[in-house]
C-alpha cells in the first residue's frame, strides 16, 4: 500500500507545478495580436490621466489632469485641471467642449478629416489589431517584467507630418502610458491611473456620448 503524501510534500509539489506552469507562461512570447486582444478584452475602461506636454523650444512642461473613458460608445477625454475642457469622440462626431462650456461639433458623416482622426484614434484605443496595422507600422517590444511597449509609426504621410510616433506601454491587459512625439519634437505623455473595467458604463457616463 502506498504511503499517503504528506501535506508538506503536497504543498511543495503544488508549488513546483505552479512554478513550472508560470515559467512556461513567462517563456511564451507576447505578440501584437495577443496584447491587442487583451487590451480589447475590456468593453469599457475608465480612469484618471495625467498629461504632460513638453515644449522642445523652451523645455517648459504643461501638466494637466483629468478623467478618461474608452468604451464601445466612444472616447471621452475630460481635462479637469488646471483648466477644464473635454474632447468626445464617437463614431459619428467629434465634440470639443471649451472652458466656457461652448461645444463645437464636427460631424463625421460628411467630414473626411474627422473620419481620418476617428479611425486613427479608435484603432489605438480599441485594440483592433487590423485597424492598428492599417494606420501604423507596429513594433512590439516585450520587457522582462511581462510588460510591453508598442511603437506606432503612422503610415499616412499627412498624419506623419504632425505626429512622428506613438509609444503605448502597459502590462498584461492594462495600458499604463502613451507618449506621442510630434513632428516639432514636442512630446505629449499620458499616464493612466485608477483604471477600472466596468461591464457597463453608468447612465451619466453614457450621457457624454449622446451628441445633440
Amino acid at each position, binding site marked *: 500500500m502506498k504511503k499517503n503524501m504528506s501535506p508538506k510534500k503536497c504543498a511543495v509539489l503544488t508549488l513546483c507545478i505552479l512554478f513550472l506552469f508560470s515559467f512556461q507562461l513567462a517563456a511564451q512570447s507576447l505578440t501584437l495580436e495577443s496584447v491587442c486582444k487583451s487590451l480589447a478584452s475590456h468593453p469599457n475602461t475608465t480612469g484618471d490621466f495625467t*498629461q504632460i*506636454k513638453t*515644449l*522642445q*523650444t*523652451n523645455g*517648459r512642461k*504643461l501638466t*494637466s489632469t483629468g478623467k478618461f473613458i474608452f468604451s464601445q460608445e466612444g472616447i471621452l*477625454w475630460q*481635462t479637469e485641471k*488646471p*483648466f*477644464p*475642457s473635454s*474632447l468626445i469622440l464617437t463614431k459619428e462626431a467629434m465634440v*470639443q467642449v*471649451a*472652458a*466656457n462650456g*461652448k461645444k463645437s461639433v464636427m460631424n463625421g458623416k*460628411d*467630414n*473626411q*478629416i474627422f*473620419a*481620418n482622426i476617428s479611425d486613427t484614434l479608435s484603432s489605438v484605443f480599441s485594440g483592433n489589431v487590423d485597424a492598428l496595422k492599417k494606420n501604423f507600422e507596429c513594433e512590439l517590444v516585450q520587457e522582462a517584467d511581462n510588460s510591453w511597449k508598442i511603437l506606432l509609426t503612422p*503610415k*499616412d*504621410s*499627412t498624419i506623419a*507630418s504632425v505626429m512622428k510616433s506613438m509609444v503605448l506601454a502597459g502590462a498584461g491587459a492594462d495600458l499604463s502610458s502613451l507618449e506621442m512625439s*510630434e*513632428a*516639432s519634437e*514636442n512630446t*505629449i505623455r*499620458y499616464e493612466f491611473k485608477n483604471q477600472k473595467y466596468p461591464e457597463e458604463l453608468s447612465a451619466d457616463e453614457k450621457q457624454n456620448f449622446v451628441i445633440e
Partner: protein
Amino acid sequence: MKNKTLLLNKNFLPAWIIYHAAVLVFFVITLIAFPGKVGIDSDLFNLVPKSISMASVKKADDKMMAVTSQNIFILVANEDFKEAKRVAEKVYGQLEGSKNFETVSLYSDVGAMSEITDFLYENRWNLLDEKTADDILSSPDAASDFAMNALAQAYSGFTMLPLDNLESDPFLITEYNLHNYLGAVQNAGTAMSVKDGVLASQFDGKWYVMIRGILSVSGAKLASKNNAITEIYAACDSVNNDGTSDGTTFVFSGTPFHSHESSNSASREISIIATVSMLVVIVLLIFIFRSVKPLLFSVGAILLSVGAAFIATLAVFHKMHVITLVFGTSLIGSCIDYSLHFFTHWAGNQKFNSGKEIKNHILSGLLMAIISTGICFAILLFAPFAILKQMSLFCLTGLISSFLTTVAIYPYIKLPAERGNVRFTVGFAKVVSVLEQKWVGRTVISALFIISVLLIAVFHKNVKVKNDLLTLYNMEGRLLEDEITASKVIQYTPGGWYIVSGDSEEDVLQNEEALRHDFEKITEGAVGYVSTTNFVPSIQMQKKSQAAYEKLLSMAEAQFESLGYSSDESAMLSEKMRKDFSDSKDAYVSIEAGNVPDFITSAISSAWLGKIDGKYYSVVLPTKVTEYTTYRSLVENNDNAFFISKSQDISADLDKLTVMVLKFFVVAYILMFIMLKFFYSWKQAFKIISVPFLIILVVVAVFATCKINLEFFSVTGLILVFGLGLDYIIYMMENEKKKNEAAASTDSTSVLEPFATLVSFVTTIISFGALALSSFKPVHLIGLSIFIGLATAYVSSFFYGRAAHKEGEK
C-alpha cells in the same frame, strides 16, 4: 411675275465667279489677319445664348466661366485606399507635364501646411473673424472667455498646432485662425480631404482619390484629336489595361467631358446625316434621270455651296460652332432644290433646246424662292445669339452659291441626246390628275385648318413659350452616372454664384463681406461657399481684428502666468508682444499689395476676378443653390452684387429670344407679303402668304398635342420653314401661271415642274427629318418643327397650286 424679263437674258457667270472669289479672298484675308484664331468651336456652353441681361458684369462672368468651365475632376475609385492612390499616381504621372493642361494636381502638399501656419502666425492680429472680433470688442466677458478657452486648449489633449509659439501667441490665435481657415477650406470646396498626401474621400465602401486639372487653350480644343479629354481617357484606359489595376474604376466630372461627348456625337451625327442625305440624293438622281450627269453637277454644286458657306462663316465669325455644321448639312436638301428644277427640264422637257432656255424658264421661280428664303435667313442675322447668326449666314451663303451655280453654270451643260426620259413623271401625272379635283384640295386644306384649330383648342394649356436649359442637354449613360457619383462624393454642385463689384479692392471686399453676412443669415450657415474674404478680409475688417487683438493684449500678463510663467517673465513677454504688434500693425494683407501667399491665391483663384474695365470684381460661389428665388432676392436691391444662375438666366433669356424670334417672324411675314404683292396679284399674294399661317397652326397643334413647349429652337425652325416652305407654293404658282399662259395646258411637260418640287420636297424633308432624329435637343427641335412645317407647306402648296390651275382653266 411682272419684271422677270429684266433678268432672263442675263449672263450670271461673272456674278458666280465674283461671288465665290470674294468669299475665298475674304476667308484668306481673315486667315492672314487672325492667325490661329480661326477654327471649330465645340464648347457646350456656347450652344446657348450668353446672358444678355447683365452687360455690366458680363465680362466678369465670362472671366469666371473661363476658369470654371475648364475644370475637370477625375476620381479614382477602389475599395482599398492604397490601390486607388497607386492608380491615381499612375494616371497623374501620364498627364503631368502635358501641354493639354494648365495644371494637373494630385498631391496635396503637406509641406504647404507650414507655409499656411507661418502666414496665419505672422498676420494673427489681422485675421480674427468678424464675429469673434465683434464679440471681443462688444462684451466685457468675451475677451476673458477667449483667453480662458486658449488656456484650456493649451492644456487639453488636442491642439492642431504645436505650442512652439506660446511665448508670442499665448491666446493661441494662430490655432484659432487655423481652425477658421480649415473650416473655410472645408466649407468652400468639396468633401474631399487630405489623406496620405492626396485628396480623398470615402463613400459607399469605396475610396475616391481626386485628380484635379485645368485645361489649357490647346487642350480645350475638343474638335482636335489630341485634346485633353482624349488624353485623360487614354491615360485611364492604359492603366486599366495594363493588368495591374484591380477593381479600380474612374469617375469623370466637369463641363469639358460633356463638351467632348457632345462634340463627338455632333461629329458622328454630321457623318450620319450627311451620308444619309447624300445617299438619298444620289439614288434619287440616278434613278430618276437615268444619268450620272445631274448627280455629278448636283453634288458639285452642293460641295461648292457647303464649302463657300463654311469658309464664309469662318471668315466672319472666326469660330464656327460644330452645331452650325450639323444644321448646315441640311443645306444639301435646300441646295438640291435648285439643281432638281433645272435637271428635271434638262432631262425631260423637250420644248427647250438649250440650257439657257431652261434657265430662263425656271429663273423666276428660283428667284422668288431664294428671295423668300433669303429674307428669312437674313432676319436671323439680327438675332442676338451667335449660333443663330452663324446658321443664318451659313445657309444664306450656301443658298446663294447654289442659286448662282444653277443659273450661271448649268446652262452650259450640254443637253442629253435622248430627252423626255424622266422616271416617275407618268405615275406622278396620274396622281396629279386624281388629286386635281377641286373638292380634294379644299377638303385637305380645310381639314388641316379645322383639325389644327380643334387640337389647339383642346390642348391650349400646352401651348406655351417656355424654355428650360436643363432639358436642352440630356446627360446620359456613363457621363450621367459619373456626375451623380461625383456630386455625392465631392458634394460640390454649384448652381449659381454672386458677382460682387466695387470701385477698389477694399470696396469690393467690403461689399463681399456684407453679402456674406446676409447670405449666412438666410442660409443659417448651412451652405458653404467660396469667397475671397474668407481668406483675405477687407482692411476695414483687419482693423477691427487688430482692435480686438489689442483688447486681448491687455490681458497678456495674466495669460502668461496661467501658463506657468513667472511674473517677470510674463511682463517681459507681454512687452515684447506689444512691441511686435506695434511694429507690424500698419501692415495689412492685401491682394494689390502682393503679400498674399500662393496657397491663398490658389484657394481664391475662382473667387477673385480682380480689375476688369476699371472696376473690381469677386465671386461668392455657394457650394449648392437650395432656393434660387431666395438667393436672387438677397441682392435684388444691391447695385454691387448680382446673382447669376446660368441655367435659370439662360432659360429666361431663351424665353426673351423666342418672343424676339416670333416678332422676327411677323416682320418676315410682312416683308414677304410686300415682296409677293410686288410680283403677284392680291389674290395670289394672299393665297401664298396664307401658307405660313397654316404651317404655324399645324406645328403649334402637333407640339401642343405632344406636350412640347414652343422653345426657342423650334420657333427658329418655323422661321426657316417660312422661307423654305414658301418656295413650294411659289414654284407651284409659277408653274400653274405658265400653264395658264401656255395654250397646251395638257402638255405632258407641265407635270415636270410640280414633279421637281416633289423631288426637292422629298430631299429636303429627308435632310430635316434626319435632324429631328438628332440626340441634341436644339437640333432635334429645329428638325422636328421644320419637318412638320415643310410637310404642311408642301401639301398645302400642292393643293393651292391645283386650285389655282383649275381656276385658271375656268
